[in-house]
């Protein structure tokens, strides 16, 4: 965004960036140091020795994938619908979905608990995937809608003149252009589903089904609270998310320079 020509200004910008970022790094450093406190990197080994790390990771992946798939499909379609198409009572629908955004997760627990019990859905992945996706959607639909509004209508006109159907317009014109927001949506959804704690805690009972976020349980007894291993577990949990984020960032760059507008 900034056009920097002089060398001096380049350095200034770099320094400003550095100063701004340092406060963010301090707690991270403290956290990492905490994870190697006491017996050092053996903490990581201790986490691994619980024997459940691979299984938990697998479950987290399954759940996150499920949530992302649902959220992506519904966000893209609904975002497109709200932004570009004619719907009777559009605002009403939109507001109803937005109201759902106001719900704290805690409130969902009792009703879901009662429902899942009746439907014998405890200890299934769906019991976790569905509520999490439902909680993400209001915001992601909002994001998608706003983004789609910014796509010039001429593009769709052009497609229509070429004889494309609504679906083709969606598939060939809109979808490629939404790469930046799609990446954001995927990353944000990944974070929220990967980090989900309350829902897996309640609805996934057997160790075969539990997620990475439940690793710290092994290190928290009534009078024990093994910070070092909890932090080590946290670092392990964070790594896949960081990798996913970096991959998605690349997607931003691609979508940006596509210059599809021309």
């Amino acid at each position, binding site marked *: 965004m900034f056009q920097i020509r002089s060398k001096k200004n380049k350095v200034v910008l770099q320094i400003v960036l550095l100063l701004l970022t340092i406060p963010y790094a301090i707690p991270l450093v403290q956290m990492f140091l905490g994870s190697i406190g006491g017996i050092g990197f053996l903490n990581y080994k201790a986490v691994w020795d619980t024997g459940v790390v691979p299984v938990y990771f697998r479950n987290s992946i399954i759940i996150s994938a499920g949530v992302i798939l649902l959220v992506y499909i519904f966000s893209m379609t609904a975002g497109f619908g709200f932004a570009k198409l004619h719907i009777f009572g559009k605002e009403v629908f939109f507001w109803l979905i937005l109201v759902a955004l106001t719900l704290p997760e805690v409130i969902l627990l009792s009703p879901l608990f009662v429902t899942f019990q009746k439907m014998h859905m405890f200890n299934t992945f769906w019991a976790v995937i569905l509520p999490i996706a439902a909680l993400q959607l209001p915001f992601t639909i909002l994001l998608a809608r706003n983004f789609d509004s910014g796509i010039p209508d001429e593009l769709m006109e052009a497609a229509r003149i070429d004889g494309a159907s609504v679906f083709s317009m969606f598939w060939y014109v809109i979808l490629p252009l939404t790469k930046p927001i799609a990446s954001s949506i995927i990353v944000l959804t990944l974070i929220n589903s990967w980090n989900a704690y309350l829902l897996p805690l309640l609805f996934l009972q057997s160790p075969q089904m539990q997620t990475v976020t439940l690793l710290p349980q092994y*290190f928290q*007894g009534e009078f024990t609270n093994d*910070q070092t291993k909890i932090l080590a577990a946290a670092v392990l949990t964070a790594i896949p998310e960081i990798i996913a984020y970096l991959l998605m960032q690349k997607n931003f760059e691609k979508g940006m320079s596509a210059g599809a507008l021309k």
Partner: protein
Amino acid sequence: MKKRRIAAAGLVAVMVMMTTMLGGCGSSKEVEDTSSETSGEVVWWGWTPGSPTNEEYIAEFNKEYPDIKVIWKQTSIDDYDAAIKPALANGEGVDAFEASAGSGNGGIQVFGGQAIDLTDAVKEALGDDYKDKLNEASVTTMTVNGQLKGLGVGTVYSGNLWINQDLFDKYNVKVPADYDEWKEACRVFKENGIEGFVQGAGQGAFNMDTFHAIADNVSPGTFTKAARGEVEWTDDSIVKALELWKGLFDDGIMQEGALGLQQYPDANNLFMSQKAAMVMMGSWYTSNALPDTMKAAIESASSTEEPFTMIPIDFPDIAGTGNTGSMFGDLDYSTAVSATSKNIKAATTFAVWLGTSQNGQQMIADSLNVVPSLKSATPDWDNVKLVNPEKQNEKIKEYIENAMDSGDNPRFAGINADMNQTMMDVLAGVAGGTITPKDGAVQLAATQADSE
């Protein structure tokens, strides 16, 4: 194309709904006990004391009952209720579970309805006079509607301090017996870069312990009477206790920033990493005097120091009344058996073994974590090796005996949830100077009146 699109969208929605509904619509749940008294698989839920101690209990159990497989499932203390409720309701995945007195986490009042009556089982194990053989509180607090819903495993007591004797020796500090000595000790330690006394005053429960100890120091037994509504909270002795509580903060005994820390892990880590010389913990802390447990605790505190000599001391006589050594305790946990379990017989065997058998209770005694329910089980000092036996053995033995003699002085069992919250608020407010001791007492009285 358009039609196909609508159809596809509709189909997805319908599929999601159908799967949701059909997800579990299958056979109804029949509860069949597939276990026997000597074989089966038991999933054991709990929050304390944590691995690997629980596995050690299980290993000992398996020496007598090799065909009963017990799996320990742990949750953190805060999440226990939230996690076990659906599991119990679901009727699957829980066979035996820990319960506590009253309505705290895992409270028997809350979960008793899901547990079976263990009276017959315990009669079989100990005879009809089982009540004489077990700690009285563990039987009475576990009885709901005349049924014995849980077999108490052990009791924890509070009311004392633990100190790092090595640090006291190093800086030549006198072990405090009254207010001035306590202030002096803290001062000397601070000069040498160590916190004198440390508490996670951000965690209300431990503040209540301190307050209870002060109240008992001012006027023994008044705290319990007030909690039972026999005495008003606005009684002078309570106000005095609150004033003394405030004094701890104003006079530099409580470390700076105490209100911003939690007992676990913050204050615990400070004591374990030898950055603090004194801490108020109860009988559960005794297990840290064992070399292996202490080493693990020190490592968790991100420290590489060697185990040190920790000993229990009486709460200092800060009111100057001479009333010291008061201890108060609750049954820490019991074992209950889920009524919808498929392994009821096996789970019952386990519960009985852990709570009433000589072998089981001996293990409990030796782990120094709780004081066993079985009166005949006491720590086997030949077997139990402490970090510094010369300095610790006698003191700790006396300490445990004193605790067991404490009589009718419950810790949290007599305090309902609302009272609990108000007390935490008042203690935090008084400590921070936003509520006066008098007003605090009034608030306590008000909540007590409301809940009656």
